[in-house]
């Protein structure tokens, strides 16, 4: 197919940037909610070539970064049990818990495995009937269908030694929380394209009209992100606040029906604690009672009370857009990707890691 590589065309990127320059007349703050877009903005140097009127604010959209510390500790605790195989996505292994991370637990002999997909964990459970296989299932709406599907597969195959430790976060309540924060001054949003691939655009209309903010559903390639910014800027300059879809090659208005159905079958909306930010009402998914045999929290009696976290990491301020990673006193000193003090330095979608790896790079001519 055509139009895969084209989304990285630097000539076209410059052209759209010029159009942004021509359009903008006043200062605007735009939040990209999703860490994947933060990564693209910083890695491709877009952030350095935007006109000075535009400030990009990096939002809380990194599921690895917002997984509450008590769940990291719970995962480590499970992993240390001799009969447990603890599986997760690679990024989760280096996220600091209260005392250590999963990688350190692995070094001490815990059976911790990095998987590409939760569906692989079901296969591991099938192959290891004497072990308990737990998948540490984190993610936004994008990942919820795959995590839900793993439970449906396990149930269908009569596998009883599989469960998930779920930490699911939802984007629209987070946008709402960010707008309602008295310190935030965000004029427009790039919504996360892959989240909308699943959920569709419907949830964003009431947000855009209630808070009078333009919201543009945006993809992840350099051209996508720059075009998304242009669309937000055009609306801001015109004073409109619509929901627009930049990522129409992937996102259908209604989202993915099958994916939404499987989420509804397995999960229900619940309050959720976001690391660094606190509890946001109705901003997560918990496993429904009919799947409770697959809920690691119930199966292993894990405490879900989030203790107060003591940390030098200012990730909350970073994710609310109040500070840039480079304004953190520990950035690049006490806190590096090798020795992260906070989760945003771990994940490739974390703002701190993106700044650490890519700051200073720019779009090639």
């Amino acid at each position: 197919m055509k139009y895969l590589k084209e989304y990285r065309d630097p000539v076209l990127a410059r052209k759209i940037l010029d159009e942004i320059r021509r359009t903008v007349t006043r200062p605007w703050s735009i939040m990209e909610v999703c860490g994947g877009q933060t990564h693209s903005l910083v890695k491709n140097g877009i952030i350095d070539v935007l006109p000075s009127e535009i400030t990009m604010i990096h939002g809380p959209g990194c599921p690895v970064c917002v997984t509450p510390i008590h769940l990291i500790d719970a995962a480590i605790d499970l992993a240390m049990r001799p009969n447990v195989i603890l599986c997760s996505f690679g990024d989760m292994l280096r996220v600091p818990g209260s005392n250590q991370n999963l990688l350190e637990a692995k070094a001490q002999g815990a059976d911790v495995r990095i998987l590409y997909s939760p569906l692989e964990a079901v296969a591991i459970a099938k192959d290891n009937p004497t072990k308990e296989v737990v998948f540490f299932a984190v993610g936004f709406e994008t990942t919820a269908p795959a995590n839900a599907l793993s439970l449906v597969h396990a149930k269908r195959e009569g596998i009883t030694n599989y469960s998930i430790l779920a930490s699911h976060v939802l984007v629209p309540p987070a946008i709402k929380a960010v707008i309602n924060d008295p310190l935030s001054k965000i004029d427009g949003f790039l919504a996360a394209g892959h989240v909308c691939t699943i959920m569709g655009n419907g949830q964003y209309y009431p947000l855009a009209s209630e808070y009078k903010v333009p919201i543009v559903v945006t993809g992840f390639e350099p051209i996508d992100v720059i075009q998304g910014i242009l669309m937000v800027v055009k609306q801001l300059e015109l004073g409109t606040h619509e929901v627009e879809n930049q990522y129409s090659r992937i996102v259908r208005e209604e989202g993915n029906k099958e994916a939404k159905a499987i989420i509804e079958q397995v999960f229900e909306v619940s309050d959720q604690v976001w690391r660094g930010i606190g509890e946001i009402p109705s901003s997560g998914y918990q496993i429904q009672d009919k799947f409770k045999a697959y809920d690691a929290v119930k199966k292993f009696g894990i405490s879900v009370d989030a203790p107060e976290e003591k940390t030098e990491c200012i990730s909350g301020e970073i994710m609310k857009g109040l500070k840039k990673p480079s304004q953190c006193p520990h950035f690049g000193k006490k806190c590096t990707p090798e020795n992260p003090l906070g989760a945003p330095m771990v994940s490739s979608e974390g703002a701190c890691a993106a700044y650490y790896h890519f700051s200073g790079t720019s779009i090639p001519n």
Partner: protein
Amino acid sequence: MCLAVPGQIKSIEELHGGLLRKAQVSFGGIMKSASLEMLPTADIGDYVLVHVGVAISKVDEEEAKKTFEYLREIGEVGELEDIDEYLPKTE
């Protein structure tokens, strides 16, 4: 971890009497398997977006084409109108 990548379906395998469809998807030559349970109409040759082992959307080439036509036109008119004001700002 939120990465979702477009690839092309090369083959489809039906399991559990068609209940479960699994595809081999090529990402620029690298093959990986992906569940098609969220995309019941996906077929061999289709480009799909795959996230953590599950195909979540078909890539719509027509929509991509429209976007590119629009993007290529950007500035063609504007450049003529604003050229003086706009030139000094470019490095």
